[in-house]
């Protein structure tokens, strides 16, 4: 069906959010949806086709609201695409919005156990890696404290440490490392570099240097479509040029 090296394949992928003007429209949609459509669609992704091979490292760039994050969420399986074909094979480690998925009232330990299970790890696996996770995060005795006592940076550390121990096939990083301090960012970058040797990387960042350092390919997404796909040097250059010449278009968040 697909070449054995392909880990992600997207064909004409589109994702529409259903926007309702008010709550009663939603009730009507549930009851009478077969006869009439009561919502407007906002197409965050319009038509995206690409293929990622095992071992690739791909950067996704684009301005705010262009559909990068939606694309990542679709690939992770958090959101379901509305149309087109998506084919993803392998265990995914989603480094999205680091630490914001933690439950504030639970301790670090509880969050690691829950988070590990959400990511698809079995309990013995999490237990076996637990000390190593705490070590990597460097949160020490705070692991027994509720997450609400953690700083934003500590939350991100713990979340990244958990993802790093997943032994994933695909690593998806969404400009999340910005919250950590320089030392931790370097630690993460080094780890990601090591990961690239056997895994597949999808990387979203506005930091040009990181894109150049980590990725061998860059995809520029604009208005829910792929605008350019090629070597990071070229794509980043045309993207930077476009940012200077094209005005910030306020109409792009409109639903049809």
């Amino acid at each position, binding site marked *: 069906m697909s070449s*054995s090296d392909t880990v992600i394949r997207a064909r004409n992928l589109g994702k529409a959010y*259903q926007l309702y003007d008010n709550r009663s429209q939603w009730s009507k949609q549930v009851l009478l949806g077969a006869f009439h459509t009561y919502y407007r669609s906002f197409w965050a992704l319009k038509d995206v086709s690409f293929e990622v091979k095992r071992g690739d490292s791909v950067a996704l760039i684009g301005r705010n609201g262009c559909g990068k994050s939606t694309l990542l969420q679709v690939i992770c399986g*958090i959101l379901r*695409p509305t149309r087109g074909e998506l084919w993803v094979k*392998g265990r995914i480690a989603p480094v999205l919005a680091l630490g914001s998925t933690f*439950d504030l009232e639970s301790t670090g330990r509880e969050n690691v156990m*829950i988070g590990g299970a959400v990511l698809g790890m*079995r309990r013995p696996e999490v*237990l076996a890696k637990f000390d190593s996770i705490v070590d990597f995060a460097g949160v020490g005795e705070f692991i027994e404290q509720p997450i609400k006592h953690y700083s934003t940076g500590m939350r991100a550390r713990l979340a990244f440490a958990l993802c790093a121990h997943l032994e994933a096939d695909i690593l998806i990083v969404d400009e999340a490392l910005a919250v950590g301090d320089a030392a931790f960012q370097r630690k993460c970058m080094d780890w990601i570099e090591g990961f690239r040797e056997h895994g597949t990387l999808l990387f979203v960042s506005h930091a040009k240097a990181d894109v150049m350092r980590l990725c061998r390919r860059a995809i520029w997404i604009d208005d829910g479509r792929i605008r350019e796909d090629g070597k990071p040097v070229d794509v980043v250059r045309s993207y930077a040029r476009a940012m200077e010449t094209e005005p910030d278009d306020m109409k792009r968040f409109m639903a049809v």
Partner: protein
Amino acid sequence: MTAVASSPELRPEPSPESHSGRDDEPLLHIIDGELVVTERRGALAGLLHWFGEPMRAAWHHRDLIMAILRRELNERFKGSMAGWVWAIVAPFLALVTYTLAFSGAVKLPNQVEAASQFDYALFIFGGLIAYSFFSEMAFRGPSLLHEYAHFIKQTMFPAEMLPIISTLRATVYALIGLVVMLAAQIVLTGTVYWTLVLLPIWLIPFLAFLIGMTWFLAALGAFTRDAAYLMMTLAPILMFATPVFWSIDGFSPNVRLLMYLNPLTGFIEIIRHLTVLGSLPRLPVVAWTLLLSLVSFYFGFWFFRRQRDRIADVI
């Protein structure tokens, strides 16, 4: 916890080289918003497969269910100083209150001569355990997905497991209440009936009914807060339409049939038979209750699945 950490892992960890061509890799394949099913099935096999789906999903996510359940119970029982004591004191006090209030009654509401002055209290208490179990789920259901929004929005969190988790959590409280009740029964009346061993068979359909209801309410509540207000309005009314403090045997047959439309009626009648009365419940009641729980379970599951993809969008 550390003792378990040294145990050998269940799954051998693949070396980096074996990353290419692992067979057990999870696969996500969607075309036009529909999951692609690779296995072909006939109509009957497909139907059977669908009926097994909730159980398979729950088994697949068993570690997640246990991790969250463990956390929730920890929070409940470690967050307070007295911990488990509260969970036992509350049902105990309720039982004492009923005993004092109703100890004069010599006739049970179903026209059976009370064997002892405590039977009436136990009679009410059995119904109350089932009812408070139900109302906890009814109140919590609509806001359930909002409580866990942080998981649902950002991770591949299987939201359909949440109703199962919260129902299991409530089961623990209900079981504590049940144990208090049985202990009181032994101490006060000195009798327990053999029918008690059938209680687990009562519990399973009741859980199925509640999980189905919570699936439905949770999906509804994700979109509209009205679901929560509706349940807050309905639950107290339902308490009087439910035979918690009385029995339906005093009514004319037509009214009785009408009352069985309330699914709790059957469940409460059966638990009374098994615990306080020590007799087997009537077969039509059992069959009807079983049917209701199956309908609730699969309708709730179907409804939740149908709305699932919109849920991540609106939460």
